[in-house]
């Protein structure tokens, strides 16, 4: 298939029915909280659109973002993503290797300069000139800056690309940062999550292809339609939170009854993502449904935000000053007490008994 074919032509070639395509468009419209009528607009726009060239750069990452996208069940909405785009460069998925791989990136950049989409997964190390991660002898920093120049928009996939993620966690030895910390003059959409939900990537691309612009974003650059609410807001265990019913351990009666996991450290109340509604593994479940609290992986600095197993209302670290404060408190109290007694004794010593003569004066 060439990049000059429209998506509609491609789907017809592959034997995908109009009905299946409309179902896909309706699902996209629903996920992005668009009006029901917009499904037809999406279908119309997508069927006519030419597949945009996409360059996917992988930096300091673990490939789980790509795994998330490719290992979903089949047939999937996500599988259609590869029909919507021309994925011209991706380390893990492309057949080409070595110099020819780099050439395919350069060709893609040259052929669609100013129009291609740049997808980035992984953080970018910038300490010591960015030498801690290189591709084909070039630093991630150098590569990102070059490819970003000709991109129409950038999609930062995963928490590492969006916020620095695990490479950025303390002590951050490589100086890892997010895409938005380096690129300031391009539209960037952050699809955070460790890994992110495949349907969110699809949704953002569908929105871009349909409307020619990125969807409405929150203050962290994430699409509001997917990150507008917290996991806690949409959690099926929320009624138990409201009733004050909590699992105390992972295998107690509360856990078996499916009670709220807040006390086991669930970060659902502070985590914005669509896991509770979109779910994972083809709609099977999401972490909380499997009995484990949310880790908060789609939020910045989630790795440094205290133990995964401490409730949000509990201290995020050891309270180190307790003993020293108690000793100091007793010492100050004792010192003030001694000073007060000395003052009292001094006042008693200085006391003169009043006489009749004093009163006459």
């Amino acid at each position: 298939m060439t990049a000059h074919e429209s998506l509609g032509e491609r789907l017809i070639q592959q034997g995908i029915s109009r009905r299946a395509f409309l179902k896909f468009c309706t699902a996209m419209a629903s996920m992005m909280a668009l009006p029901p009528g917009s499904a037809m607009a999406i279908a119309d726009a997508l069927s006519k659109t030419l597949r945009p060239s996409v360059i996917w750069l992988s930096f300091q990452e673990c490939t789980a973002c790509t795994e998330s996208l490719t290992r979903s069940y089949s047939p999937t909405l996500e599988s259609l993503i590869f029909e919507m785009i021309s994925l011209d460069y991706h380390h893990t998925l492309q057949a080409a290797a070595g110099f020819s791989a780099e050439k395919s990136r350069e060709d893609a950049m040259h052929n669609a300069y100013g129009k291609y989409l740049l997808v980035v997964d992984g953080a970018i190390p910038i300490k010591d000139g960015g030498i801690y991660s290189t591709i084909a002898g070039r630093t991630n920093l150098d590569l990102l800056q070059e490819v970003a120049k000709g991109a129409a928009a950038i999609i930062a996939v995963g928490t590492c690309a969006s916020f620095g993620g695990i490479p950025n966690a303390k002590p951050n030895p490589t100086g890892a940062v997010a895409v938005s910390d380096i690129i300031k003059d391009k539209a960037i959409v952050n699809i955070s999550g460790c890994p992110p939900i495949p349907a969110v990537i699809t949704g953002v691309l569908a929105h871009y292809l349909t409307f020619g612009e990125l969807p409405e974003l929150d203050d962290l650059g994430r699409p509001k339609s997917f990150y507008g609410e917290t996991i806690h807001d949409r959690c099926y265990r929320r009624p138990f939170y409201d009733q004050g019913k909590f699992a105390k351990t992972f295998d107690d009666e509360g856990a078996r009854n499916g009670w709220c996991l807040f006390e086991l450290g669930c970060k659902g109340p502070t985590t914005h993502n669509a896991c509770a509604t979109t779910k994972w593994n083809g709609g099977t479940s999401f972490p909380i449904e499997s009995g484990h609290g949310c880790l908060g992986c789609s939020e910045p600095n989630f790795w440094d935000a205290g133990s995964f197993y401490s409730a949000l209302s509990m201290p995020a670290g050891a309270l180190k000053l307790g003993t020293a404060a108690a000793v100091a408190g007793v010492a100050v109290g004792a010192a003030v007490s001694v000073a007060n007694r000395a003052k009292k004794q001094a006042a008693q010593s200085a006391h003169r008994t009043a006489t009749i003569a004093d009163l006459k004066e």
Partner: protein
Amino acid sequence: MNEVLLLTWVRSTGLSIATGIFVLGTLWRLIEIYTLGRKPDLSVPRHRAAASGLHTLFRRSLPAPGMFIRASASYLAGYVFHTGLFIVVLLFAPHIMLMQSLTALSWQGLPSQFIDATAVLTLAAMLLVLVDRINNPVKRFLSTFEDYAAWALTFLPLLTGYLASRHLLLSYTTMLALHISSVELLLIFLPFTKLMHAFTLWISRWYNGDINGHKGVPS
């Protein structure tokens, strides 16, 4: 600093500093107050004082004859907000988790809807006592900056906690960080303001009752 880092800071370093100052200040004040001592009263007791102290602990929570009518706002709103604070602070599950992590003691909480309703009532009662303090010329005359500061230090944790739990005004993460910050401010200033009555209340009542009983004043 983003909201997650802010929340993490107030849950770790901020809480560490606040609890440190709270422990230091409370021990300091308690030791200072209770080592002041009093001259031994060598007079013959006019009344058996044994139960006077104990009786006064409870008697002082009830209005003096005729006072409830004269200062109904103070008494009614006072009861509501003190009881409300007790319920919200000690019987809300996330708060119990904090106490458990600090003291290893745990107890059963109440449903969050009940806590929500109690918080609203408590907020209303606190606003009422503030309005009463400002409107009543005598109370206004007697009030100092410390009185208003003590009110604000108590009101803010309640307000931010309610806003956080209801997801109002700001994101939950930011509001939770503000809530914990306001609690930390309360912890820091509690030992050095009139809010210290949370600790000294019972002993001072007992002391007053005991002294009065010794002098023959009915408790």
